């Protein structure tokens, strides 16, 4: 599916953000990328869809090297990669429906896009996704009237409107409170598994990464220092990634969370959705 070989990015300032990263994702799994600030997590994920131009290396998506593509070919490939952002990055003055449909921009012509005439299948898919992320009835609300959690739900739905073969997720929860963060992560992970879409998720919250990912990649100063199943993450590994500290609480806390969260999971989620819908 995705195969990255010896990817490097040196910024014009001379900073080497990522220095020779290689890994591949060959099954639909959720891969959490963790590491300290400045380790190159954001750069790495943006080099894949070339919002940041890589300096060298290969990014193969289903046999196509993204790094060498022309602008036009790149746009075609970008349609196959959905991206979810830390600051949600919705177009504030457009409605929720318009934001969702913007995920199909790569597929409709200019005039259809201008007149908001999207194919019926797209509109149906949008309504279905809206329902799936718990925003039923919000299609005509302007994006700037939503709460943070609701905005990220729209962000997720927009990315999935592209019917992507790969999800690129950049710190999806960093602007949200802990509880909303868990809800958002759960939605991303569930949808990724439902649709068999692999997801790369940058996340600085180790607890969340542990609870929701299948595999963890640890970045430190632009290099991969850990790449294994989530279950093998331990204090030694965290020391390797972040440096010396007392990691026992971080890991234990994550496990505790899991214990208390899972049983009442269903009711909690439903309640909060209703509450958000009422206050939203």
């Amino acid at each position, binding site marked *: 599916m995705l195969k990255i070989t010896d990817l490097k990015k040196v910024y014009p300032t001379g900073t080497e953000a990522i220095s020779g990263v290689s890994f591949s994702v060959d099954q639909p799994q959720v891969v959490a990328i963790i590491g300290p600030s400045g380790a190159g997590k954001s750069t790495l994920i943006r080099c894949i869809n070339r919002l940041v131009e890589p300096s060298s290396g290969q990014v193969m998506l289903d046999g196509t090297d993204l790094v060498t593509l022309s602008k036009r070919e790149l*746009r075609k490939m*970008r*349609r196959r990669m959905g*991206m979810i952002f830390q600051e949600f990055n919705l*177009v*504030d003055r457009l409605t929720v429906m318009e934001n969702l449909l913007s995920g199909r921009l790569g597929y409709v012509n*200019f005039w259809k*896009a201008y007149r908001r005439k999207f194919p019926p299948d797209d509109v149906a898919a949008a309504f279905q996704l809206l329902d799936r992320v718990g925003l039923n009835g919000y299609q005509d609300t302007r994006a700037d009237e939503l709460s943070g959690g609701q905005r990220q739900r729209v962000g997720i739905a*927009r990315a999935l409107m592209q019917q992507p073969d790969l999800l690129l997720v950049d710190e999806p929860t960093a602007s949200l409170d802990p509880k909303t963060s868990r809800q958002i992560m759960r939605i991303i992970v569930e949808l990724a598994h439902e649709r068999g879409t692999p997801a790369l998720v940058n996340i600085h919250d180790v607890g969340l990464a542990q609870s929701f990912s299948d595999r963890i990649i640890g970045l430190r100063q632009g290099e991969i220092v850990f790449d294994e199943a989530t279950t093998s993450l331990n204090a030694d590994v965290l020391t390797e990634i972040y440096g010396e500290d007392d990691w026992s609480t971080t890991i234990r806390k994550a496990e505790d969370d899991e214990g208390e969260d899972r049983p009442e999971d269903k009711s909690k989620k439903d309640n909060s959705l209703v509450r958000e819908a009422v206050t939203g």
Partner: protein
Amino acid sequence: MTPSSEAQTIQPLKWNRIRIISNPRVRYGLILMAVGYLIWSTGTLELDWARINNGLPRAANMFARMVPPSFSRWELLVKGMLESVQMAFSASFIGMVLAIPLGICGASNLVPRPVYLVARTLIILSRTFHEIIIAILFVKIFGFGPLAGILTLIVASTSFISKMLAEDIENMTPGQLEAIRATGASFPKLLLYCITPHTLPRYLGVSIYRMDANIRHSTVVGIVGAGGIGQVLAASFSRYDYDFSLAILLTIITLVFLGEFFSNWVREYLR
């Protein structure tokens, strides 16, 4: 916990606010220079009270001849007024259209550096000169009449609206642009789904403000011969028809009021 006596002795007892210019000699020197220049310039410009005194009775005479305003030549008045409004409206609309490409090219976050520099240079150049100076230029080139006036107002409107538009685009959060680019959208679609929704309310607001301003400017550019009511006003002054001048001034005031009222109403509605 009580603070230790040792810690207390370390605290400084004096605190001075930070001045913009920290050196007092430089600070007071600059103030002295400014005051000196003020005295020197009022002295050399012959601002003398005698002349102001002599002017006062002349002003009284002029105002006396102004009242009551004479609307007897109302055809001339209406014709000039309509011409001014036509100039203002057509110049505003043409300016609005021309400002879109210029504004987009003047946004550093959208276009390559050379395009940006060319567009910004154009905008700055056309903003360098006051409308009156541009009007004088166009009257010299195209002769007296409303053509010169319209061209003047088009130049002024285009540069004003495009500068606002360019700055509004530059103030966008890069995230929205990034997100729409990440869907595989081309540049025209980026304009459609990201830049238009972001800039439209302000663009319309600025354009309407400009229409209101153009009504005011259209009355002024006529004074240098570029058509409209200003030209009629200038003629009435030079013929000492002060009562007619007052009639024109009152009409201009009414029109500008109406224009401002209209533009406020529309902008309120857009918000």
